[in-house]
């Protein structure tokens, strides 16, 4: 299933437990790369309103990690850990993310996923392809039940409606 507006595509491949998000940006690849890899910049765009991203630490290198909190309007926090695997500057990076506690200990209550983010020049701008792979169908199911990431769905006002169905 594919949905498209202007230059934004979300493609779901359930058979391969994969979701691909593609988006064009009107900025050079170096700027887009910085926005994805520097904490001062990430904190400014990663969370949808009214949430805020609050980075505790970001060590952007192969084997490094990014630990951040999604902070809700009432100050409630959901901690997320991102482990970086492969990094090819201005081209791609791969990572995994999962929910954790405030010490960075993995929380097994919520499933994580694998990321492959590819950055390519597209005219004067940049095309970003985000490939999200879930570890199992069970994970996809749990994500469905819990909302994609706590707070995000609530922020979008859809979670209550979604939960009514279960």
């Amino acid at each position, binding site marked *: 299933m594919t949905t498209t507006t202007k230059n934004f595509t979300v493609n779901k491949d*359930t058979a391969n437990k994969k979701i691909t998000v593609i988006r064009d940006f009107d900025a050079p690849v170096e700027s887009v790369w910085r926005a994805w890899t520097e904490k001062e910049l990430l904190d400014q765009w990663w969370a949808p309103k009214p949430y805020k991203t609050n980075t505790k630490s970001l060590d952007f290198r192969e084997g490094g990690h990014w630990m951040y909190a999604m902070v809700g309007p009432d100050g409630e926090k959901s901690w997320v850990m991102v482990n970086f695997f492969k990094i090819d500057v201005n081209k791609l990076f791969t990572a995994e993310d999962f929910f954790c506690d405030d010490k960075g200990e993995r929380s097994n209550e919520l499933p994580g996923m694998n990321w492959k983010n590819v950055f390519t020049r597209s005219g004067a701008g940049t095309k970003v392809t985000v490939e999200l792979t879930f570890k199992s169908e069970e994970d996809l199911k749990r994500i469905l039940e819990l909302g994609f990431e706590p707070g995000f769905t609530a922020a979008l006002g859809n979670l209550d409606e979604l939960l009514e169905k279960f």
Partner: protein
Amino acid sequence: MKRDVFQAIADPTRRAILTLIAIQAMTPNALAEHFDMTRQAVSKHIQVLRESELIKQKQEGREIYYLMQPKKLKEVDRWLETFRNLWEERFNNLDQLLKKIKK
């Protein structure tokens, strides 16, 4: 037993079954004719689809028909829509930021 919708639609044969009965209700025999596998194998797939509540059965005289339950499939759409909204908003934020850092 209730089964996961995502698991149910992950299989290509089951997706084909859904496509067939989306057009019209079908008997198990009519369905099986469309597939190059044993009736038993087709019937196992039907079972998974029933358990996930993607299809339901209706008795008409001596025949059983399978019908699509579109409401269940909408759950998948709804989830994707939520996911899409998240990324759309996130990327709109990024557009704003990129304008700033470009100077």
